[in-house]
């Protein structure tokens, strides 16, 4: 449980995070049509995953911790999924 992560790992992860930041800003400069939002979200999710796995030590944690970490996000998806499904249906006049 008391896993000590190499400093190097932290630096590498950090470098990746900065890279992704640059990427997301760059992507936003271009008009990618409908792809804009998914790309921005994908990058954000990638960043979040890096942080959760390394900075927050989930990669080294017990399965239970992983379950709890995933649980919150999964529940968020339930909420988003159903609300947006209804919004989409109403938008289309169903």
């Amino acid at each position: 449980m008391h896993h000590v992560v190499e400093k190097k790992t932290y630096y590498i992860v950090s470098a990746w995070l900065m890279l992704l930041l640059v990427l997301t800003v760059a992507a936003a400069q271009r008009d990618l049509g409908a792809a804009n939002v998914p790309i921005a979200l994908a990058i954000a999710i990638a960043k979040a995953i890096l942080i959760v796995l390394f900075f927050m030590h989930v990669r080294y944690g017990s399965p239970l911790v992983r379950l709890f970490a995933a649980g919150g996000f999964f529940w968020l998806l339930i909420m988003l999924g159903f609300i947006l499904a209804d919004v989409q249906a109403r938008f289309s006049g169903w």
Partner: protein
Amino acid sequence: MTNPSAPGRNYLNVDYRFRSWLWTTDHKRIAILYMISVTLFFLVGGAAAVLFRLELMTPRGDLVIAETFNKLFTLHGVVMVFFFLIPAIPTVLGNFLLPMMLGARDLAFPRLNLASWYIFMTGGLLAIGSIIAGGVDTGWTFYTPYSSTYSNTNVMLAALGAFVAGFSSILTGLNFIVTTHTMRAPGMTWFRLPIFVWSHYATSIIMVLGTPVIAITLLLVALERGLGFGIFDPKLGGDPILFQHLFWFYSHPAVYIMVLPAMGVVTEIVPCFARNRLFGYTFVAFASLAIAVISFFVWGHHLFVSGQSIYAGMIFSVLSMLVAVPSAVKVFNWTATLYRGSVSLDTPMLYALGFIGLFTLGGLTGLFLATLAIDVHVHDTYFIIAHFHYIMVGGTVMGYLGGIHFWWPKITGRIYPEWWGRLSAGIIFIGFNLTFFPQFVLGYLGMPRRVHEYVDEFQVLNVMSSAGASILGVGYLIPLAYLIWSLRYGPVAGPNPWRATGLEWQTQSPPTTFNFETTPVVTEPPYHYDPGDFQMERIEQSPGAVQGTAR
């Protein structure tokens, strides 16, 4: 402070100072703090019900004016839901028993537990403050844009009260989950846990994952009123249905926060008084989890006629049907537990059986509501009112009272008077049905809810309902009286008056501060009752009750 483990000491008499209560981290003392608080809130909510039931005796608004009536039912709903029923069983019985059932010395975070109580009281005072400052008239559902823009009452205070109380609920749930995972005694495997623990675990999942959503939603309403934010304002293009989605994302699962713990209580009581093993332990255990999880998928059944899309309505309808199945499994298993048992009808058992019957009726009428075409007709009528009072009052309040009676000897070390107990259980059952059964009929006839005046033809049924409510009110006051009486005059209970299984019964009554002398080791599954064991002594006659453990 005296040595807590000296002989004759228990968590109650270890220290009498007022301060020792307000700064206690003992889960049992915190449970008592909660018990006093929620009882007071119940009386406040009940008093409001008495007043508006009086008003509803006649079709004209002659007792109170419209504004007052609207404030009364809002007060009733808010207080009963957020300050009585949601905390009632988890924070009183759950707090008291969960660590003991696990064989632990306390909850994982005792100071957090005390903080929860303070947070809860802060929320409660805010809510009471909103009443004193003139009341709130939005209904407990706070629908926008009425609550955010149009109402000119103290919505902010009340919403903040519920918001703050929400955090107390979250922290309690968090504490329970962590405790269940990390504090089980040696040998206490998951499938040796009493169902009470499973139910509270399932409840806690909802508390932790649902409550934050209502918190943010109410916060947004407050921001909209206070600072002029515009998230729900249709004038700016806001969607009134968004609020309803967010509100029910929590508030539907919250109804299972209100019923799951009561199911846990009933599952402890029924095997004990049937002297029989729980029928289908694994099914009952997993049914709790299934209810908790599925409950997050059905909230849209409150929006069938709100302008939600037809297709979303259908999905939510079918999912609502699914959530009924685990509930059915529980009801059947409880009933089957009586089979070839040795049934005695002491007060806790009367309440538990009352729970099963009334929950069944309330739950089955929930299916009417989940059936789309019927809900179109009965939505926002008294049919809804009857449905949820059958579950919440007929079910949960019965379960709560049953639990209080069952564990009263453990909590206080005293026995309540059995005859009075049975009498009041009977009165409550009769009064309850007289109050709420007519409301089903009223609802199908089309009487809308939240009205202080109604058309004349509804009067007869309303009078019946009000009459029932007064019987019910008396029924609730009797236990209040004799339970307090028993604190002083009740016979001393001894560690295990019901000869029940479960770790909480293996220690003295009232328990010591740290619950157990030595950490217990568990070797058996729960509920190993034996129906052949029919010589169970009646507690009243029990001569060998240990003297001197009570105060």
